[in-house]
């Protein structure tokens, strides 16, 4: 890191909270604030475009919370959480946060966190796969309420009730919702642990279906059926998929 400044992004929806971080950083030479973001969307954009060395991240923010920002970034940027809530500390630890600062925090405590971050950057610790970490911590907090998809520096938030079905496409999954489709770099297996099993049925190796969209199921050939959705879309239903569907309906 010597020579180069430590490039930092500050994310907090409260302007005064950002002021505190900025002010405390002033007393640390070799640190450059490259972006300040007031919400999760801006944070994802800034991290994608600027690839900072360190991020100060609030948890409760409009649109995307801090953990959702991390999930969307999809790769490891060292993070120092700043929040008034102590109940996220365990989750922060699970996603390998550098530190967890509880508001209001002192300048000494802040300096300690910064030192820890520099240490982490210099040691070149193996970068844990955030995707799997986030997925790991998911089942404990129940099924997701919304699916987050990053498209370049743009973020889509899809409430699960708006999803019609999900289709596997090579290494991606494709979400169909409100006439649009969104690609996400995820496996069907990882998705299965996130979706509410009371709402989404795996009707086929390559399909999850929102049961509220189903109009009827027809016999297509021997041992194979087809699900017809309210909008007329036809999706294949495997034998095992039909058994799962029948159990739910």
């Amino acid at each position, binding site marked *: 890191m010597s020579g180069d400044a430590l490039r930092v992004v500050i994310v907090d929806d*409260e302007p005064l909270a950002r002021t505190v971080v900025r002010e405390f950083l002033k007393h640390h030479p070799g640190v450059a604030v490259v972006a300040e973001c007031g919400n999760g969307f801006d944070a994802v954009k800034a991290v994608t475009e600027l690839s900072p060395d360190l991020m100060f991240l609030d948890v409760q923010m409009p649109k995307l919370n801090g953990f959702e920002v991390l999930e969307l970034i999809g790769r490891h940027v060292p993070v120092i959480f700043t929040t008034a809530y102590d109940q996220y500390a365990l989750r922060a630890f699970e996603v390998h946060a550098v530190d967890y600062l509880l508001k209001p925090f002192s300048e000494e405590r802040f300096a300690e966190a910064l030192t820890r971050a520099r240490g982490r950057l210099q040691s070149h610790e193996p970068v844990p796969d955030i995707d799997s970490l986030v997925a790991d911590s998911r089942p404990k907090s129940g099924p997701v309420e919304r699916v987050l998809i990053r498209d370049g520096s743009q973020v889509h938030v899809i409430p699960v009730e708006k999803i019609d079905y999900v289709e596997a496409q090579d290494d991606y999954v494709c979400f169909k919702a409100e006439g649009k489709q969104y690609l996400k770099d995820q496996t069907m297996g990882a998705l299965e642990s996130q979706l509410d099993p009371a709402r989404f049925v795996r009707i086929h190796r390559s399909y999850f279906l929102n049961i509220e969209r189903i109009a009827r199921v027809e016999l297509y050939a021997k041992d194979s059926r087809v699900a017809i959705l309210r909008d007329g879309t036809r999706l294949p239903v495997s034998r095992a998929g039909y058994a799962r569907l029948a159990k739910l309906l």
Partner: protein
Amino acid sequence: MYPLLARRSHLAVYLLLWMLMGILLAAILALLGGLPWTNALLGGLPMAVAYSFICLSAWYVARSMPLAGTGAIRVVATALAAAAVSAAMWLVLGRGWMVLVATRWPPAQGARTFTAIQTLLFGAGVLLYLLALAVSYVLVVYEASQEAQRRGLQGQVLAREAELRSLRAQIDPHFLFNSLHSISALTTADPPSARRMCLLLGDFLRQTLALGGADRITLSREVALIENFLAIERVRFGDRLTVAVDAGNAGDCLVPPLLLQPLVENAVTHGIAHLLEGGTVRVTAGHDGGWLRIVVDNPCDPDRPKRGGAGVGLANVRARLRALHGEEATLLAEERSDRWYVEVTLPATAGEPA
């Protein structure tokens, strides 16, 4: 425990009454039985005292056989049977005693024997026992009503304690942590604002503590409190939060303290805080036709995570309204085209703050 035995003074009165009964009995023995007065008194008084204790059993009969829920025939049959057994037992004891007395002071010739009046004594014994049973029933009913009253009072005390606990819980500590963090930022960036924020926070906490102890406060005072709260939140959220509060013609109406505070706090933390551009928290009130109607509404993000803690504050407000006004007060909370809308209706009572 038998109520008479629990208090010595009650027992003394009871025994005194039975002594009088004993004198009466002695008179019967002397006049109808033809016994000399010495024998009559020596026989009658101890017999009365003995029967006073036998009659205590009536209380247990009354308690084990409540009048409500027991058939009339069964009650009468049991009462008569208990009375007959008691009277018979008493006569046997009495007879033995009289014989003992007679050996010491032999009655004069011509005196009628105890046997001659034992039918009369038996009848008196049965009647006395039935009287004791009737008194016991009165005592049982009285005790039950006392117990119910005591339980009612205890319930009120518990409800009041729960209310105070919920009041304290309504002030979210994270609101304080975040406000303190804002002050921390302002101390160097804008010292006069830091001081102003300290004063706002101090005022808010003092009002909260003062109002928490009151039963009812005027709506104007509650509105002053939430305006104070919103002023603090405006320092944190800046331009994202705007406020429109109008108590209308209802400023003098009485409301339970901190009724609106949790609703306004929800409006900020679950409404405005989730919006990129923020919005206005609106509080409007008015009363007509004996009803006070208060509306708190705010814009909200339809895609916000729904699994929030908004339910706790709302449930608290609902429980308090129910405790104070029963079915008369209502709380309506719903999303109406991207606005979160909470309407509280309660009977309007005007007056000075308690």
